[in-house]
């Protein structure tokens, strides 16, 4: 079989079949995400113990207060969110002329990540503003986990999740194609942020680090891929993670 073009809801295994290693999804979504995961996992070996999953300030000087957390946030978003955009990336790539496939998909990813970067900056500013504790304490962790678990159970979540399956039309040639690719990435970023942000926040303060990241990533991937998303189950898993954090 050739490439899979599923408009609608992809199943997780579909990503891994059909010679996917050389396909667009592997190149444009899985490769950046895998690189981000590798960096995140390798980081402690190079810089010592570090709270990898965070957008919060981790020190007083400018670099550790603003720059480092934002870089870590981008890594985390690339690792967890880019694979979720695989269906959109796949369709954009398939509908682009061969000669400008990389260009269009890169612009899409730029728009997509830009949305998440803005959100990361916003979070940092908000945390500063309300004096959110720098080192996570039981209280702050609890608030974020329980908010995430509750969010998973709401009707808003379901609607937000549905929107994540939207594929907007895009021009394929010239400036219009550049603009559409970037705008569609930015737009998809919006859908993705509204569906996933609250679930990402507890991870960004978790002391479980990459373990929490992997767990939440699995939940988010499953809810995108499942034809009947088990949001109750994912709320329960978040609850278990919270218990673990408290232990």
């Amino acid at each position: 079989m050739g490439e899979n073009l599923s408009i609608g809801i992809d199943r997780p295994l579909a990503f891994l079949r059909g010679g996917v290693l050389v396909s667009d999804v592997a190149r444009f979504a899985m490769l950046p995400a895998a690189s981000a995961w590798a960096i995140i996992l390798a980081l402690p070996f190079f810089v010592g113990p570090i709270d990898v999953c965070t957008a919060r300030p981790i020190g007083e000087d400018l670099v550790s207060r603003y720059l480092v957390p934002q870089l870590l946030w981008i890594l985390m978003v690339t690792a967890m969110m880019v694979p979720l955009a695989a269906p959109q990336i796949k369709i954009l790539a398939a509908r682009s002329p061969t000669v400008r496939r990389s260009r269009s998909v890169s612009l899409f990813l730029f728009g997509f990540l830009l949305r998440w970067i803005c959100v990361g900056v916003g979070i940092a500013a908000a945390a500063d503003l309300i004096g959110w504790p720098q080192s996570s304490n039981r209280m702050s962790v609890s608030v974020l986990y329980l908010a995430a678990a509750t969010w998973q159970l709401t009707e808003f979540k379901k609607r937000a999740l549905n929107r994540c399956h939207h594929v907007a039309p895009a021009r394929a040639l010239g400036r219009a194609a550049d603009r559409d690719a970037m705008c569609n990435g930015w737009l998809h970023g919006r859908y993705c942020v509204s569906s996933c942000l609250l679930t990402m926040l507890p991870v960004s303060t978790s002391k479980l680090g990459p373990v929490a990241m992997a767990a939440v990533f699995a939940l988010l991937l499953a809810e995108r891929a499942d034809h009947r998303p088990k949001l109750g189950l994912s709320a329960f898993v978040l609850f278990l993670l919270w218990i673990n954090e408290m232990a």
Partner: protein
Amino acid sequence: MAARIRRNVWKLDRSDETLAWYGKAVAALIRRPIEDPSSWRYLAAVHGTPQGMATPASARGYWDQCQHQSWFFLPWHRGYLASFEATIAKTVKDLGGPADWALPFWDYSESLSTERNARLLPSAFVERTLGDGSPNPLWSRRARAPGGNFELDDTAVSTGALRFTNFTNSRPGVPSGFGGPETGFNPGGGDNGGIESVPHNRIHVKIGGDSGFMSDPSTAALDPIFWLHHANIDRLWEVWRNQGPQFQDPSDERWLTSVVFQMHDGDGRPITFRCADMLDTTKVLHGYTYEAVPVAQEAELESVEMAMAGGARPEFGGESEGPVVLTGPTTKADVVLVPPSGLEAATAEPRHVYLNLENITGAGIPGDYLVYIDVPDDDQPTASFIGVMTTFGLERASDKSLSHGGSGLSQVFEITELASQLKLSEANVSRLKVTFVREGVAKADADAPAELADYAAVQRKPANVTVGKISLFYD
């Protein structure tokens, strides 16, 4: 019990009571409460529910399940029909009727030379009342059509889809084969398989008109003719498979076993099935066969090669300069072609050329559009018909809050022959002129069977359609 035999509705004997018993069962089911899995409204809700209709907790996972624009379209509807047939058959038996009741099919595509009534709605469905003055349970809210004549023309009843040799397709920009594109569960958006587009979608909207039940997936199964229409589509799947050994169902596990559907049997007990369970009709639930399906043919390889699955990725060849809003009776749009590069020009002509209509979104029931491409003929360009853009399911496919995210419908036409006529691969042709001709929808009756009045009261949005983009692909 031997497998039930589904018969051609226009070929039933005058003395045959299949439809009379069907009517009695419909009348019984329609009175049952909606929470009852063997009620008329529950069974229709399995296909779809109108916006705003709450799903009771007990029906979660059972309602609103129909599979459209998907390779699950045929197998899901096969299970759905069997579940329905079992329920009606049990009711018929309980009412004192025959034990082997089977759903008839309406073969509107039969040649008029062998069945001159083929394109007319079977007469038992036409009148509002029966001979004794009581309401006819088989009548429903449909387009106004005196004598059951819905003006089904060749473009509505064509079985050209049988010529696809592939069931599905996973390559973008290429038609989705006979059965529909590879998708996950419940996509409701994207492009239709050949058989789903014509005659399936066409018949739905022709019968339903601007506000009849059949025009909208969320109410379609409320009309008793829905089931005879789908029995025919299901029968055409058998016809397709029996054309020869190259007509094969998918062998991919993602189709065969990975998705589980759930419904109820004739006794109201939950059942589950997968596509793999739907391949032998004699083993589907109680088992059934079709009268007059040609038996499996040995290889008869002739001009059936159409867009085989697999193969190279088609290359982009051109696009419209923005979305095309279809207003008025005809809309014209240009597709700007990519100038052929030296390399492409040096290679042979493309083997296949496909015109794609992407992200078709809108609301209401706009009806179908006939699509043409201008062919220069001396000075006077003539329009060459390339196919029908069907819009059944448009509003749901455009709804961002539903599970597919509102990307709309899409449609692919193979235009290889026309492309070589137009010499598209030559550098001096830079544009393709596409024309959409609105077919319009017939006005439907204002009322509905008394028990279904709620469904008829739903306000329809004014119709509108936009084609997000027209593009050209070739391989």
